């Protein structure tokens, strides 16, 4: 490629020209920013302005463009120049909309704009147009693990969209849990009667679909590779192994019912006590007629005990609510009432939870005469030819009991998510340490694994508490931390059939997106379409393993010499590895230690006596930066002493930026990232958490520099916090004013 040519375009529209001295900005871009072309325009985003830039690119050979106008989140369609590197200086949302109006503030306002132009130019100087990953991966086939309602739906939807699909099912037939059901909870208006599951029809459609290949009696023996090039070994019960290449995987391995043998206190193990699955078998046998017990007797009275071994706070049973079992009991009570309205059906519940249109279904059951009693069961004994259920009536506040021919326990969903990775790591370490027992355990674990990934991070998806498969449940439900592998259905959270089918459809679309992006060498969600990817200068690498360990997505393996091996198709471009690397050898073409570091250094630092502190804000571009823009949109004033730099994720913040900032005289550094912890909102799951962790270690550095720990703070910010960010900023500026100016000013 020919020589680089840098250009800056300064907009004077949207009131910029009235509030800012555009001439000064031009001069700064030219002199300090060293831009070869500098132009201003009264309405840069209109056709004429855009044409001006395009002409420069096409005719004048401009390769790098700095747009000094509105936020990088505005006018992205107008300012779409795919052939050049581009930076944006945010003068509108970042300056004129947030600095107090009036002459008194003219000076600080202009200073702020000057700095943003300097920063935009400095960043641009360090940027390259991302060329895209040359190592493209072309398989667009989709593997679905699990042939139940979720898996079949995902396979069918993907195939209908034109993608070749493989289904791997452990059992000898398709259908999974749903195949055992007599009817399902209604999912169509008027939501008053149990409905046919529709499973037979779906299984038939899948079985005969030209784009779907079904492997029954099979499991996944090994999964290697990355999106677009997963190498999968499918093992049949007989021992035969088929090797297949697929581009993405949907894991829809469902759940098993909680074992009622663990509930002897509720009669688990007694002849006339069954779980909901047991009742479905009885109902299928009855085929619409009166349901009979195992001993052949017609059931004339039945009691449903809700939350059996669920929502348990004693630590003995499942602590969570499975969500579907209230509606399921309502449905099952209707099996009885529909066969014979005189059958006594009592549902003993603590809270009846019927999400969606379940209220209508509940009412319908009440109309049919199903009795709902708010109570907590304390025991089930066999009595006469049936059971005696003792419970506390929570409305009448008394101990009481009822007799019934049959008791049904509403037990919960236990996810089939494979191996738990923490346990895996522990066993692996012990095995590597030579423990024979651990080696044996590892073999057993492998057998229970669903995917058998060859990743260094372990054979299955990471799990949440209670053993559910990974899922970014706040923002992107089917996303897991293993790029190209999507969890769908009750394996990722408890759910009913309707939710499972919706889940499966969503996961199928995600899988399609993943294979398409991989084939173009681009990032998958959430930086979908990003052409940049991590580049590592292995010459400088110290094999410290931080990047491999900290990458939230398991994208980095290790070679025999313990050097990191990047699997670009697995990478989400979060930059966490870049933030982690102590020798700073990881970078992206358009986002690196230098692109941010040069911006920090470009800020013009007033001296110690100016009474104008400078505070650096590193704001996550997913939530915090939009929140700041929104504050601007609502014209909420905040301090003009801050300089904001958006970052891909707080995880990408390298501590060198902090020390650079403090060294160059910044009085404080504030990082704004997403919520961390179990209920995280971080787009990259662990980024925010890692940043908090890293910053907790920065204290020593500060002490060495002779600075107070308050000079570096980290905040959790949500996208809706547009007013709160303002408070955070203003409070912090006040705090820094208290502390006084940084003693580091003027040393460089």
């Amino acid at each position, binding site marked *: 490629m020919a020589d680089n040519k840098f250009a800056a375009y300064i907009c004077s529209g949207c009131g910029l020209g009235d509030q800012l001295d555009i001439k000064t900005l031009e001069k700064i871009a030219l002199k300090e920013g060293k831009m070869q072309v500098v132009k201003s325009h009264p309405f840069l985003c209109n056709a004429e302005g855009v044409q001006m830039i395009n002409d420069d690119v096409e005719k004048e050979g401009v390769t790098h463009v700095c747009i000094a106008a509105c936020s990088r989140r505005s006018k992205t369609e107008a300012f779409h120049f795919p052939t050049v590197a581009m930076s944006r200086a945010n003068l509108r949302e970042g300056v004129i909309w947030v600095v107090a109006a009036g002459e008194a503030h003219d000076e600080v306002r202009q200073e702020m704009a000057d700095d943003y132009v300097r920063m935009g130019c400095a960043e641009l100087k360090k940027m390259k147009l991302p060329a895209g990953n040359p190592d493209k991966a072309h398989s667009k086939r989709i593997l679905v693990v699990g042939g139940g309602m979720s898996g079949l739906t995902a396979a069918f939807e993907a195939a209908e969209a034109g993608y070749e699909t493989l289904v791997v099912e452990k059992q000898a037939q398709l259908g999974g849990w749903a195949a055992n059901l007599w009817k399902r909870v209604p999912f169509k208006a008027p939501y008053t009667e149990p409905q046919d599951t529709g499973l037979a029809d779906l299984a038939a459609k899948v079985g005969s679909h030209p784009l779907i290949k079904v492997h029954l009696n099979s499991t996944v023996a090994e999964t290697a590779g990355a999106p677009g090039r997963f190498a999968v070994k499918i093992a049949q019960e007989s021992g035969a192994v088929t090797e297949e290449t697929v581009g993405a995987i949907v894991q829809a391995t469902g759940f098993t019912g909680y074992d009622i043998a663990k509930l002897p206190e509720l009669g688990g193990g007694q002849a006339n006590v069954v779980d909901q699955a047991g009742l479905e078998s009885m109902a299928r046998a009855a085929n619409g007629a009166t349901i009979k017990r195992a001993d052949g007797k017609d059931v004339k009275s039945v009691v449903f005990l809700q939350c059996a071994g669920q929502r348990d706070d004693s630590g003995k049973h499942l602590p969570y609510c499975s969500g579907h079992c209230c509606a399921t009991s309502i449905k099952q009570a209707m099996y009885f009432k529909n066969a014979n309205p005189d059958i006594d059906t009592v549902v003993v519940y603590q809270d*009846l939870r019927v999400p969606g249109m379940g209220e209508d279904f*509940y*009412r319908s059951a*009440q*109309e049919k*005469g199903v*009795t*709902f*009693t*708010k109570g907590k069961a304390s025991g089930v004994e066999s009595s006469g030819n049936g059971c005696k259920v003792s419970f506390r*009536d929570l*409305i*009448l506040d008394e101990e*009481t009991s009822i007799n019934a021919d049959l008791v049904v326990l509403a037990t919960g969903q236990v996810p089939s998510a494979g191996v738990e990775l923490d346990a895996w790591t522990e066993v692996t370490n012990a095995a590597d340490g030579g423990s024979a027992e651990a080696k044996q355990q590892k073999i057993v674990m492998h057998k229970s694994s669903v995917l058998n990934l060859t990743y260094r991070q372990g054979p299955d998806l990471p799990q949440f508490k209670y053993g559910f498969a990974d899922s970014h449940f706040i923002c992107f439900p089917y996303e897991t931390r293993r790029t190209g592998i999507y969890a769908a259905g009750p394996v990722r959270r408890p759910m009913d059939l309707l939710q499972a089918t919706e889940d499966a459809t969503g996961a199928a679309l995600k899988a399609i997106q993943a294979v398409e992006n991989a084939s173009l060498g681009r990032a998958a969600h959430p930086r979908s379409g990003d052409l940049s990817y991590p580049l590592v200068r292995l010459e400088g690498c110290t094999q410290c393993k931080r990047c491999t360990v900290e990458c939230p997505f398991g994208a980095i393996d290790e070679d025999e010499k313990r050097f990191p091996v990047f699997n670009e198709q697995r990478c989400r471009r979060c930059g966490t590895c870049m933030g982690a690397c102590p020798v700073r050898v990881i970078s992206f073409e358009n986002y690196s230690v230098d692109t941010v570091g040069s911006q920090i250094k470009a800020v013009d630092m007033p001296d110690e006596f100016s009474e104008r502190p400078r505070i650096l804000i590193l704001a996550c571009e997913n939530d915090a930066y939009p929140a700041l823009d929104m504050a601007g949109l609502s014209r909420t004033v905040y301090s003009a002493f801050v300089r904001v730099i958006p970052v891909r994720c707080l995880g990408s913040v390298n501590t060198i930026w902090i020390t650079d900032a403090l060294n160059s005289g910044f009085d404080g550094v504030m990082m704004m990232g997403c919520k961390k912890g179990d209920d995280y909102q971080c787009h990259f799951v662990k980024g925010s958490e890692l940043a908090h962790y890293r910053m907790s270690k920065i204290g020593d550095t500060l002490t060495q520099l002779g600075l107070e720990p308050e000079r570096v703070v980290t905040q959790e910010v949500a996208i809706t916090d547009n007013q709160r960010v303002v408070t955070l900023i203003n409070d912090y500026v006040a705090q820094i004013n208290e502390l006084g100016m940084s003693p580091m000013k003027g040393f460089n």
Partner: protein
Amino acid sequence: MSNANVQAVARYQNDFLREVEERVEEGHMVKMCMQCGVCAGSCPFGPDWEHSPQKIFMMIRAGKRDEVLGSDSMFMCTSCYSCIVRCPRELPITHIMHGLANYAHRLGLAPKGQPTREFATLFWNNLVKKGRVNELTLTLGHYFTNGLVSGIKTALGMQRIGLGLFLAKRLNPMEIFGGHGVKDLKGFHAIVAKAKEIEDRKKGFTA
């Protein structure tokens, strides 16, 4: 046990809910209660009720016939309709309370001497007699239901009210001897008698 009660017990055996559904005004809605407790929190005399509407409905479903029909709670209803407008399941709670009270009263199971029961009976009889309510006989009658002595005491206690209303020309002592009434009393009585006959037939009060 009254005759009607014996028959009801025999007919419905343990199914009190069905009995209520068939024989109590709006009783078919009892099964639709979802036990949220909003009605219980809405009753003006709530703290004085032994069984809130919510509990009464639960007791009916639990088959507690004697407790329900012997409860004085239904008589605590002031007909304020707060519950009706707030019930998420749109149960006509006020009417069910009235219906239960009426049913318990008719079966002779309602608590003896319950003041509202007495007053309500007096009210209806007073109304039926003339076709319109005669406020003075009604109030006097009410204060004497508890027996003469306590009646005189209460009446004396309330004298200032009666006197005040009298002075304000809003209570007419002459009503004792006649007062307001419907002209076609015969027709009016015939209607009431016929309606009662139909209702008794419908609800199984006739033998």
